[in-house]
């Protein structure tokens, strides 16, 4: 009995947080999706209507924006993997301890800067007369300007540490004799990475991808400052949140659905248990 009391005391705070604040506010959000808004005063009244969902289906902008956002989130995730795996292998297996420490600091350093500061830095970099064009202009290369490409680059810059850190940790924990064995059996570097390293670090990649994917899915500030005319799910929710909160709530179900589908797929692969 005493142990039970201890256990519940221990769990009280996290449970209060999880159910009382986290789950409750999510449920309230979902309930709001069925409420009605006065078209003139934009006052929200409790009620039950499916009109908000009808509107989301009827207006093609919602679907195209959802698909665009999904594409951006997947692109950011793939780009992060493509950078993190070679970087992780180099840091864990090739670099000297000094260089390794330096790289580790370099990867995590951006986490200490403000989110908005980083986006504005990207804005300055990619502006027409900015850093990118002035460096590469003489070579005849002109930057992507403010476009969907810049949004992907910016989000990758923002979320890369969430992929790079777990991937590096996983690679550094691989026993060195696996590499030796692979080399002894005649495998080249590429073959070793494909058949030995990647299968072993897959849980880490999936863990990282949950961050890069879901963080990108919910972002809208990057689209606003470096996206030019790029519209994301978050942009639409933000523009509706004051005028028509119920439709904003209804539309927020779309990214939630995306993340749930993603998690189910990940779960199927069995990666969650090994995380």
């Amino acid at each position, binding site marked *: 009995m005493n142990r039970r009391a201890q256990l519940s005391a221990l769990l009280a705070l996290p449970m209060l947080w999880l159910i009382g604040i986290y789950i409750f506010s999510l449920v309230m959000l979902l309930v709001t999706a069925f409420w009605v808004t006065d078209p003139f005063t934009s006052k929200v009244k409790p009620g039950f209507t499916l009109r908000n969902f009808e509107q989301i289906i009827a207006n093609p*902008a919602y679907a195209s924006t959802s698909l665009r956002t999904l594409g951006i989130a997947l692109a950011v995730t793939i780009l992060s993997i493509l950078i993190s795996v070679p970087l992780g292998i180099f840091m864990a297996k090739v670099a000297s301890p000094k260089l390794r420490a330096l790289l580790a600091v370099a990867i995590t350093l951006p986490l200490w800067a403000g989110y908005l500061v980083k986006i504005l830095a990207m804005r300055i970099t990619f502006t027409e007369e900015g850093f990118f064009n002035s460096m590469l202009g003489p070579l005849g290369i002109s930057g992507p300007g403010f476009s969907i490409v810049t949004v992907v680059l910016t989000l990758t810059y923002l979320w890369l540490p969430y992929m790079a850190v777990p991937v590096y940790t996983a690679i550094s924990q691989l026993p060195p004799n696996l590499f030796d064995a692979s080399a002894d059996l005649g495998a080249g570097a590429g073959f070793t990475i494909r058949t030995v390293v990647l299968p072993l670090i897959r849980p880490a990649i999936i863990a990282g991808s949950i961050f890069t994917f879901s963080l990108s899915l919910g972002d809208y500030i990057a689209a606003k400052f470096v996206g030019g005319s790029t519209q994301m799910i978050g942009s639409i929710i933000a523009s509706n949140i004051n005028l028509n909160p119920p439709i904003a709530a209804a539309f927020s179900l779309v990214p939630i659905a995306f993340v749930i589908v993603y998690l189910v797929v990940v779960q199927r692969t069995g990666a969650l248990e090994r995380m």
Partner: protein
Amino acid sequence: MRSKIMTGAAILAAAALALTACTTDSSSTGSGGLSIDVPDIAMLEELGDMENEVNIVAWSGFVEPAWTDEFTAETGCTVNRRVAGTSDEMVQLMRTGDYDVVSASGDASLRLIAGGDVQPINLDLVPNFGDDIVEGMKGQIYDTINGKSYGVPIGRGANILQYNSDVVTETPTSWDVAWEADSPYAGKIIAYDAPIYIADAAVYLMAHEPDLGITNPYALDETQLDAAIELLKQQNEIVSEYWADPAAQITSFAGGTTVLGTSWEILRKLTDDAKFKSVLPEEGATGWSDAWMISAESESPNCAYAWVDYTSEAEVNGAIATNFGMAPANGAFCETSDEAAAHCEYFNATDEEYFEQVWFWTTPIEQCIDGRTDVTCTNFQEWTDAWLTVKG
């Protein structure tokens, strides 16, 4: 064109027609004109003792220590400021009931009045609201409903066409450079990022597609709204960016990403670079006109009235207008000094002819405020929904 300005008493006397005056020919509205159901909220009859504080929701630059300190010293009311970034945010904040006063633009004020969030203002208790208030800001549709006044004007400005004269060497006379697909500046055009920007497209169509029959950019029936959205989609192909954040707009021009597009005088001034010039094109433009409104649930009505009156005084009203960069509502400010005169000149403060070309932001509602009764106009929710399709 004079007519878009509500001509006051004559029309108000026509009873329930309070919303009609926004057309070229207000007499055409007839008896089927507009009236808005406004919750009955009592007007303050006389002032009492000052409370301790007044809570204000305002645009950035409207409430600054330079003039609030003196107010607090005079009245004993401490000023608590909350800066809001958009009209929609202001409406939402006022509904919390935590604020006494708001600096509402025309697209927020109608919603606040109809929502019963603000109270009618007894102008007898605002002695500084007098003959010096510029003609074009008295009794406007967006702060005077059914003959009752809900707002005391602060200032106004136009959404002008700003351009980089290094690139755009000839002064544009028309908005066509910002709207037409064959614009020589395609890919370097900036547009405003809000549903109310649909009205800018309507202003352009009003001049270039007369067959659509648009007479007021805030009274669009479905066909007219579709036409405006088509034009916005065409523009979407040639824009470099959309701006809602003033700082982003300035850096877009300064960084060369944008060479022309919609702007405010103050933003042009802030670039601090003479190569950026502005013009009010021949089609006219949209604009904004702000007014103080007092919350229906105000816990400090006396401090609120005192604040509204204090800021309507020529010097203070001028200080706000100078700080924000707009035309002051109180014309008397223009005669207080050479600097003030220069400010008024620059912002066309008393130039009604200039502001006759400006269609001030107004919340679009189902009743056509241009006086048409045979069609239903599109409301702001429909504008918001249509706006999403522009960027697709």
